[in-house]
């Protein structure tokens, strides 16, 4: 497996905020992260990979929560492991959402501000809570919060000290679309301010909407890194398989065979049509036109191999 570097990252004016050099992490015989080298500068970067790929392990090593078995992890040149002072520069939102439920949102963020020994913890708390729009619910106990509210409050606690580096593990989990949009805007704003923001996700669209640069991690290895659009194109121009149910499967099969983007069609009495398309975009645009011209009603169109694992495994093979 080789790393696909699809574009050289834009030169960063300052030194790299987060630097991983040849980092591996293993537990006994199980290798969780394998020889990962990556450098993160200012701006938002997505850490993309299927579940179990090692994203959390990478993030936890960046956060000083885990010791790398081999290699070095530094933030602004400082090692993160066994080095608490480095937390003045790092904010962490872990995936595990445990909080003391008896604290109100305000108390939770204020405690964070105090533990960071900020000069004016109350002012910093107010600012952070405003930023995540949790002002209305700030005096309620956190055990009464929804998952999304808890997540936002944890983000407020993580950025109350205005860290240069913000690490978020699956920050969009459990958020409704409006909260998701707001969180995306927030991450954008943090990136534009010159902070280094890294968030992990197993959902392609999330990464697409938030970040220009992406690090793709598959089975513990860095599979690709660089510009998101280029990686996205690699992902979408691969062969796709669809199953289609229509009012006249046989007639549709004949018509589809004439379409350039279709590589093969299989007709099955029960399952309907199985279509292999060479180009995702062209095929999905062509299908409605063909159906319309042939007066066929398409009842169902299901991409058969859209699981992330298949996307990633294709990408890794590319």
């Amino acid at each position, binding site marked *: 497996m080789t790393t696909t570097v699809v574009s050289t990252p834009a030169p960063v004016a300052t030194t790299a905020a987060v630097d991983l050099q040849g980092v591996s992490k293993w537990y006994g015989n199980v290798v*969780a992260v394998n020889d990962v080298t990556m450098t993160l500068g200012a701006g938002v970067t997505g850490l993309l990979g299927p*579940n*179990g790929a*090692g994203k*959390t*392990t990478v993030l*936890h090593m960046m*956060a000083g*929560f*885990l*010791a790398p078995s081999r290699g070095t992890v530094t933030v602004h040149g400082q090692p993160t492991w*066994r080095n*608490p*002072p*480095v*937390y*003045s520069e*790092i*904010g*962490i939102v*872990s*995936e*595990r959402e*445990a*909080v*003391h439920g*008896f*604290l109100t949102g305000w108390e939770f963020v204020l*405690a*964070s501000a*105090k*533990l*960071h*020994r900020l000069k004016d913890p109350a002012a910093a708390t107010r600012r952070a809570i405003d930023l995540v729009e949790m002002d209305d619910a700030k005096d309620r106990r956190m055990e009464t919060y929804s998952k999304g509210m808890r997540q936002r409050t944890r983000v407020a*606690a*993580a950025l109350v000290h205005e860290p240069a580096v913000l690490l978020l*593990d699956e920050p969009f989990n459990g958020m409704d679309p409006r909260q998701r949009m707001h969180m995306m805007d927030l991450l954008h704003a943090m990136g534009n301010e010159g902070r280094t923001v890294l968030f992990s996700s197993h959902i392609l669209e999330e990464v697409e909407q938030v970040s220009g640069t992406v690090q793709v991690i598959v089975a513990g290895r860095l599979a690709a890194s660089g510009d998101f659009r280029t990686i996205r194109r690699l992902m979408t121009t691969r062969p796709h398989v669809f199953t289609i149910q229509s009012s006249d499967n046989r007639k549709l099969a004949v018509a589809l065979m004439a379409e350039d983007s279709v590589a093969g069609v299989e007709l099955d009495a029960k399952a309907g049509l199985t279509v292999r398309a060479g180009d995702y975009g062209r095929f999905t645009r062509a299908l409605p036109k063909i159906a319309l011209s042939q007066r066929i009603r398409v009842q169902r169109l299901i991409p058969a191999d859209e699981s992330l694992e298949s996307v990633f495994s294709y990408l890794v093979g590319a």
Partner: protein
Amino acid sequence: MNTTIIAITARALFGRRRFLLLIPLPALMVGLALLVRLLGADPKDWAQPVIIALGMAVVLPVVALVVGTGVLGSEIDDGTLAHVLAKPLPRSEIILSKLLVAVLVTAVTVCVPFFLVGLVAGSVSLGIGLVVGGLLGSLAYCSLFVALSLLTRRPVLVGLVYVLVWEGLLGNFLSGTRVLSIQQYVIEVADRVSRSDLISGNVSLAVSLAMSFVFVAGATLLAIDRLRSFSVVGETS
């Protein structure tokens, strides 16, 4: 020491249902003492089972176990410790703050009933002796159990084995194990302070004090070092 950590630790401790476990044992001890006193029994006959066998061998270590593993072990279990770890705080500050809460809560929970039982059994001096012993025990046991929270995933179990098997069982048969028994230090100190003939220690005062210091300092330093290298495990990897 860190007041924020102290405040949150104390609130978390009192908010847990497990904390209610602390009430019946000391109450049982005081109740038993009052009962036998009212029945007119001679303190010489019941001081050993009530004060030593119940108070020092069960009430003190069990309360310290519940509290000592509660201040840190519970936060490790539910993952809330990560919030504190992600702060630029010396790890010694975190451990000492947690330890302070544990020792204070244990001492109050144990020493008040100890004093009452001492009064019922005979004298203010016995009460004071038990209180001093209880303070020493709270400090030593809590240091040990806080450290155990970081050394094992099952601190309550390991702590129970230490209290019941090492101190309780082996301490009765093998006198050599008494040198490594916090319970024996507590009895000796209570004995010396109270000058009561109702209790008598088995190890010398010098050994008791020196070994208590070794327990407290050793366990605390170990806990601080373990916390520096504490790995936060994610739900997925």
